[in-house]
């Protein structure tokens, strides 16, 4: 579908003044995509490793964790923290979408507050989950 370049486009993100609702909107799409591809592949990989038996699963765990300390390696840790935050952001933003679908929450102040609440929830819960894990050095 070639676009006729003589016809005008509607104003896009370079025109509008940025606000939390715009950030949360694009984050919903970005986190959804990250979960769908990154989370999906890691999840299936984990299940297939588990179905492969004891030795197979041990190789998977060995790849994810350090031999000397038994803790998560930095790359899997980074991915898992990122996926945890993505999940919580997509979850809270998704619930916000369901509420918006009822026609509620479009007043400017309420809408802005709702967007900020999803960010607060996702960041706080991610810290609440992962700080104890890193502190204890579980795994």
């Amino acid at each position: 579908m070639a676009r006729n370049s003589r016809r005008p486009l509607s104003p896009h993100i370079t025109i509008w003044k940025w606000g939390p609702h715009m950030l949360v909107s694009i984050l919903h799409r970005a986190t959804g995509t990250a979960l769908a591809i990154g989370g999906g592949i890691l999840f299936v990989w984990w299940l297939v490793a588990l179905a492969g038996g004891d030795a197979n699963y041990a190789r998977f765990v060995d790849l994810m964790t350090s031999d000397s300390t038994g803790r998560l390696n930095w790359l899997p840790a980074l991915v898992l923290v990122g996926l945890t935050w993505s999940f919580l952001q997509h979850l809270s933003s998704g619930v916000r979408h369901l509420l918006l679908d009822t026609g509620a929450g479009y007043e400017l102040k309420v809408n802005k507050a709702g967007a900020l609440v999803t960010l607060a929830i996702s960041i706080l819960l991610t810290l609440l989950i992962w700080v104890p894990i890193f502190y204890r050095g579980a795994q």
Partner: protein
Amino acid sequence: MGNGTSIGRVRGLGSAHEGVKHWWHQRLTAGSNLLLVTWLVVSLFRLPLWSYKALVVWLSSPWASVPLILAVTSVFYHLRLGLQVVIEDYQHDFTRVIAIILLNFYAIGGAALAIYAILKVAFQGAIA
């Protein structure tokens, strides 16, 4: 049907009669994901993930394997619907068709692989 603007080419054709289904199923699976994936994430953080034996014992119970299969079905359907919208926003013409086909392969293939792995562990138990 002329070659005018994109709106001009579809005006008067009526609805495709499937838009509402996509919208509604996206919301429906959002609700089932909310329950099932929250259960899964809480379960994962409570399990000793490095222990093969503990995970097999966990998955051998139908109270774990059945909700996990439901979660896989709900999540992969939801992600297929969601990524379809992303593709339709950014890809046009030929690449759009290819991308949607690859998405279908990924969603159906990923879900089939996951469900097979779950059932294998559930029915077969621990293997050396």
